[in-house]
């Protein structure tokens, strides 16, 4: 996993609550046995006017010009601004894979669905929770200001607005450490082999039917 570094990126607003994982990446794309290449099909049903299937040449498909990510002012967006309960629905990790492949690094919302939130960190995508009124204010600013960007500094846990104001955010230490260092979770857990073996030995005594 790449290390997460401070960056400044254009913000795209996704102004609806409960954006679910079926909307983020429709199920027909889950048939892939790879973990990359999902970006062109991010929000497929909202983004294109025709029906998308895996293997299609997406560059020739008719775009829905009303859809936010198709608007020129949001080209190259790296920050997605969203409403409550973003990422609800299935456990598909294809959702963060698609967002990341598209180019997003950060998603800001008042709340996220648990599994999506968890999956994001595993893929170098940072979900940031801010108060609903702070998010609401950001929506207004983004929509009023073409080219609106935010600077995201994970180390210091701050988001800087174009006017110089900072918003601070919370993140748990361990997750921050892993993102900043781009660490592999499995490698970290395997450093605790002895603990796992000791647990298994003890558990086998208490609940032998589980083994």
């Amino acid at each position: 996993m790449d290390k997460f570094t401070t960056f400044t990126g254009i913000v795209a607003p996704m102004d609806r609550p409960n954006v679910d994982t079926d909307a983020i990446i429709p199920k027909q794309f889950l048939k892939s046995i790879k973990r990359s290449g999902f970006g062109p099909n991010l929000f497929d049903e909202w983004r294109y006017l025709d029906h998308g299937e895996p293997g299609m040449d997406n560059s020739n498909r008719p775009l829905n010009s009303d859809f936010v990510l198709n608007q020129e002012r949001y080209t190259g967006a790296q920050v997605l601004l969203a409403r409550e309960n973003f990422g609800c629905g299935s456990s598909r990790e294809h959702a963060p894979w698609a967002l990341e492949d598209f180019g997003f690094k950060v998603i800001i919302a008042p709340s996220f669905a648990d599994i999506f939130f968890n999956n994001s960190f595993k893929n170098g995508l940072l979900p940031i929770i801010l108060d609903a009124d702070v998010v609401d204010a950001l929506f207004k600013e983004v929509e009023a200001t073409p080219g609106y960007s935010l600077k995201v500094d994970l180390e210091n846990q701050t988001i800087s607005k174009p006017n110089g104001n900072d918003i601070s955010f919370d993140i748990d230490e361990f997750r921050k450490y892993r993102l900043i260092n781009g660490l592999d979770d499995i490698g970290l857990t395997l450093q605790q082999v002895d603990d796992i073996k000791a647990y298994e030995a003890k558990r086998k005594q208490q609940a032998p039917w589980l083994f």
Partner: protein
Amino acid sequence: MAGKTLYDKLWDAHVVRDNGDGTALLYIDRHLVHEVTSPQAFEGLRIAGRKPWRVDANLATPDHNVPTTTKERHSGVEGIVDPISRLQVETLDQNCEEFGITEFKMNDIRQGIVHVIGPEEGATLPGMTVVCGDSHTSTHGAFGALAFGIGTSEVEHTLATQCLVQKKSRAMLVSVDGKAPEGVTAKDIVLAVIGKIGTAGGTGFAIEFGGEAIRDLSIEGRMTLCNMAIEAGARAGMVAVDEKTIDYVKGRPYAPKEEYWEQAVADWQTLHSDTDAQFDEVVHIDATALKPQVTWGTSPEMVVDVSSKVPDPASIDDSVKSDGMKKALAYMGLEANTPITDITVDKVFIGSCTNSRIEDMRAAATVAKGRKVADNIKLAMVVPGSGLVKQQAEEEGLDKIFVEAGFEWREPGCSMCLAMNADRLEPGERCASTSNRNFEGRQGQGGRTHLVSPAMAAAAAIAGHFIDVQDL
């Protein structure tokens, strides 16, 4: 010191190492695997040169992509028409073979939806931690287990280490008090719960369902209930162990054998919240006031009684919420204030990990018996959750009841719950479905899903529109 919740007990029994920051390395007893969320995890193992930590803790089956028509099904994996679906099923077969994982293959009688077969085989037991790369893993909490869905990175992590780093959730008790009236099923109860607390109401919580109406539910009903805990935002749902749980597990292939049975039962009998346990949040629902539920929108929280009308966004002050309702109504092709019973349907789907067990089949068949599917219904399909459910239903003659009434009787799999195979809605088609998600496009692009119980779905098929099953 206050007593422990069921969740505390399950959590504490599985801590391998407490990280001291609210997270812990948790031991996983059972890992269920299906074809959609596992290929990249096996690939990851191969690239890193890792092996599964404990092969026998895993159990795999293909369910999402398998065809449900008898002809296509009987032509075997090579006969799956969609080449990409076929590749995914083949990839699971190869991975299980390579890593030595037990798999119930597509035409094995034990194959089925992963959340149906785990309990059916006794592979899900009280007191276990159960994970699967699938959000509806919450289903298994019905046994007094800690069960939750994980992403593909965590599937790989579980395979490689038999553990996961988890943050402890807060504990919520949803107490459904009093007796549910006739015709109100587990599905109606859980839809009503989601309608009350909202799809994000359980976010950050593990929900324990309790109260008289829950104790009254069968184990299969409790599975329906816990299945949809995730739709309330909770990663895990659970119900305390009682005699019903123990009776259900007894004698199943993976259940503890003679020598350990008594010991296991003694352990399982402790799996309930202590009377003085403290929950972070408690929600009460009056079961006696419940009616059969029907969703009207594109989120499971958009739900009302069958006797009500489609709600009016104009009556809501919160603008984010009322905009969401307007979008949902536009997508669903519905007008505010339409009586639910005036909504006609095009297709009916009875199946999915929420409602495809034998009791669900029986409930639907009771309604269908001696009746006919209405003329306006283009397709009414019944898809059992596993090969064994199908077999049992056929032994009871349920398949004949369905076929005589005009339903199609299919082979087991996820089917039109998410339409990854050929079973799907066409744009604009309206479906009464016993599945768990009414999201836009879930059952096919432009498809309109209304979530209901099996009896209510069968009733809609017979009447051609929604109707209280009691009024049929």
